[in-house]
């Protein structure tokens, strides 16, 4: 797990009060209420200094921690955010 994914899963696990793995779809698991979606957007924006635009708002890209990671990497284009293998 890279640093972004770790931070995101930590945020998700705390916010949803449930251990969330990098590939868990927490919306499908019924863990998220609708206020949470907005909180998650605000978290990602403030933590990774980016702006989520409507064009990015494909629900799919926010479904799992790994997908959010890829989204952050795409938006920031930062090499430090590449996945460790």
């Amino acid at each position, binding site marked *: 797990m890279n640093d972004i994914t770790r931070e995101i899963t930590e945020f998700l*696990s705390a916010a949803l009060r*449930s*251990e969330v793995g990098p590939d868990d779809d927490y919306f499908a698991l019924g*863990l998220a209420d*609708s206020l949470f979606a907005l909180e998650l957007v605000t*978290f990602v*924006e*403030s*933590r990774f200094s980016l702006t989520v635009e*409507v064009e990015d708002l494909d629900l799919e890209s926010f479904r799992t921690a790994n997908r959010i990671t890829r989204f952050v990497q795409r938006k920031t284009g930062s090499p430090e955010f590449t996945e460790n293998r």
Partner: protein
Amino acid sequence: MNRAPGTGSPAVAEAARFASEVRGRAAAWDREGGLPAGVLKEAAAAGLLGAGIPERFGGQGVTPAELGEICAHLGGVCSALRGLVTVQGMVAAALHRWGTGEQRARWLPALAGGELTAGFAATEEAAGSALSAVRTRIEDAGDGEHVTVTGHKKWITFGQVAQVLLVLGQDKGKPAAVVVEADREGVSREPVGGQLGMRAAQIAHIGLDAVRVPRTNLVAPSGLGLSHVAGTALDHGRFTVAWGCVGMAEACVEDATAHAAARTQGGEALAGHQSVRALLAKAAVETAGARELARRAAEFRSGGAPGSVTETIVAKYAAAAAAASASSTAVQVLGSAGCEPDSRAGRHFRDAKVMEIIEGAQQVAELHIAEQLMRRHAGRGPAPASPAAEVRA
């Protein structure tokens, strides 16, 4: 803009001037059930309708703290007027946050200048606190370019006059948001009058009978209409309601104190009684506490901090309670004068009760606040309340 809040800001000073100018007219608006059309124009000319909209879209781009002070000034005079600024701001915030570049350019300047007034149409008969139950249908019109919107919305603030409505509906079972211009065929308005409070807010129930609108009026992809679009509008609404309640509570403390000092019964000023002083002290402390929480919410919002949604709920919860309590105290201390027709305290008392119900009822806010506390104890305690039950918190 990095101006400090307070009267130093021209936008706030202008709102203060506007509020004091219309102060004497608010009771008549309440009695007659509406703001005169001229007042909407004056409010627009004073920049109030576009206060929170960024300058590049023709607004004033005020900071959250300044927007708060503006709403406190207006709320202290007339909740319906503050409500006008609230709904305009809610719709603008949702369009600014989740509209496309084209949608922002199309609607925001007109909303900022007040050429367009907006309504936020979410509530339905069977969907109040739990907005995921909305049944308004947004369906493909068959021509690839339009959708039809069919449903019945209730309690739309300024729904009697709004020219654009941000409507929450369902698109094939997914929550979706769409802008409906109110002059389109199939839109009908049923004015609501004589309700408990917000009597000048020109409320209407709104019928949508297969209203055809271009697909380009859909805001954000289907599925995100509630969590993101309505969510952003409601978050903004709760913030301005919180500050409006701070202003209302402050006005009530002021009126109650002035009356207690001036009125004598049985040879003694009302303020000479300990029990009256206790009422005043309690109201003053609750009000000051609410102001501090509203200020804190403003700080979270200006920093874009992730806790801003919750801090705003906390502020709205405390401020609605303070307004309800301080207005009840004011009516008590004023006695029959508080019960008179056109009594300011009496009007605030009625309006404040409404604030404990709309934009997330107090009990719904408590659920959310407690849920945040439980986060510190992951894995323990019962699971969060069902998603449907929490949308308004």
